[in-house]
């Protein structure tokens, strides 16, 4: 008997994740559910005969659930899927949602299922780049993530909300609450993005990274923002978000020790965030379905997959990482 995946949310990320899954022989059928039924049906029709649009997401009908709905609508669905004993891949990118999904760890363990939390661009690819960079070190002291750009409209709204909500930094082995829009830092992303001012915001990357680096002293996450973004952060969005998002980037700086030397490694990626997030989510789902993920419980990608083979496979799918050299 083959595997069935249920993709909840057929927006910019969910549609890409479904496309990634349908291209793989591991899945016999893909069920596509979206609050906008017309859009769900259109995505399923575009994917071919193995994809079926469903009106409501019934988790019991699938072996694995990919949750690509807006972050605020994910928790109940994921909780229901875990209770039904189904593996889950979530692309959640808000701090409260990620926190609540990580709280499902004990139940997921008990039921022998995986909940991949934050399996998108950032968090997601950011966690994998941090793990890959950290593999060069004997001990990791600091991890700093910067993100540029947004995926679909839900991601853009989350970006806007993050700039007005308190950020979380890990510093000196404790969580510190940080004012949004503070801590300006000029970060250099891979071309064609280049330099952009990045600020503290309510980002979940540190929450997902800290458990994977015992003894780490500092973990921070920042968001690239324009002056207009910061000035209008406390207002409703003034313009309708772009339906597909534009080009985005990631920069992950890891500092640590190699023997007695302090070293710094900077990795990055540039892609359309929705495309990269959908590819990462789809690949995580495929790894779970094919038994390449052995952990059980709710955790981020840093603790879930081997970064090197995962990045290699991502590169074959067109999502490529880069290293900053020669500084």
């Amino acid at each position, binding site marked *: 008997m083959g595997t069935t995946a249920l993709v909840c949310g057929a927006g910019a990320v969910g549609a890409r994740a479904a496309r990634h899954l349908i291209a793989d022989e591991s899945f016999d059928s893909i069920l596509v559910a979206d609050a906008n039924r017309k859009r769900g049906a259109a995505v399923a029709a575009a994917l071919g005969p193995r994809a079926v649009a469903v009106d409501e997401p019934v988790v019991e009908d699938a072996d694995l659930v990919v949750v690509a709905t807006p972050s605020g609508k994910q928790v109940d669905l994921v909780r229901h899927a875990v209770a039904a004993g189904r593996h889950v891949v979530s692309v959640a990118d808000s701090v409260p949602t990620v926190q609540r999904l990580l709280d499902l760890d004990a139940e997921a363990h008990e039921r022998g299922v995986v909940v991949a939390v934050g399996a998108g661009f950032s968090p997601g690819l950011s966690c994998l780049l941090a793990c890959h960079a950290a593999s060069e070190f004997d001990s990791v002291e600091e991890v700093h993530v910067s993100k540029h750009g947004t995926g679909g409209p839900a991601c853009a709204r989350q970006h806007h909300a993050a700039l007005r909500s308190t950020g979380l930094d890990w510093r000196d082995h404790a969580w510190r609450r940080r004012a949004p829009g503070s801590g300006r830092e000029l970060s250099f992303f891979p071309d064609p993005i280049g330099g952009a001012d990045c600020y503290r915001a309510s980002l979940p990357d540190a929450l997902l990274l800290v458990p994977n680096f015992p003894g780490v002293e500092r973990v921070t996450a920042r968001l690239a923002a324009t002056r207009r973004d910061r000035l209008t952060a406390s207002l409703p969005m003034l313009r309708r978000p772009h339906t597909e998002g534009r080009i985005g980037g990631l920069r992950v700086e890891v500092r640590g020790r190699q023997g007695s030397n302090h070293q710094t490694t900077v990795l990055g990626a540039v892609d359309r965030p929705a495309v990269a997030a959908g590819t990462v989510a789809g690949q995580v789902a495929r790894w779970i379905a094919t038994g390449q993920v052995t952990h059980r419980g709710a955790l981020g990608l840093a603790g879930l997959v081997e970064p*090197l083979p995962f990045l290699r496979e991502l590169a074959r799918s067109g999502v490529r990482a880069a290293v900053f050299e020669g500084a």
Partner: protein
Amino acid sequence: MALLRRALAAIGIAGIVAAVLRLRGSGGVPPQAGGWRELSGPDLR
């Protein structure tokens, strides 16, 4: 009344100064050397 006007003026000026400080400037210096190279082949072995 004069006191209220002065207080409002002080709050207004403080707000303008805060907005200018928040929006102006840049967060660092661009790297003077180095560049990005795509990870491929041996990097991913």
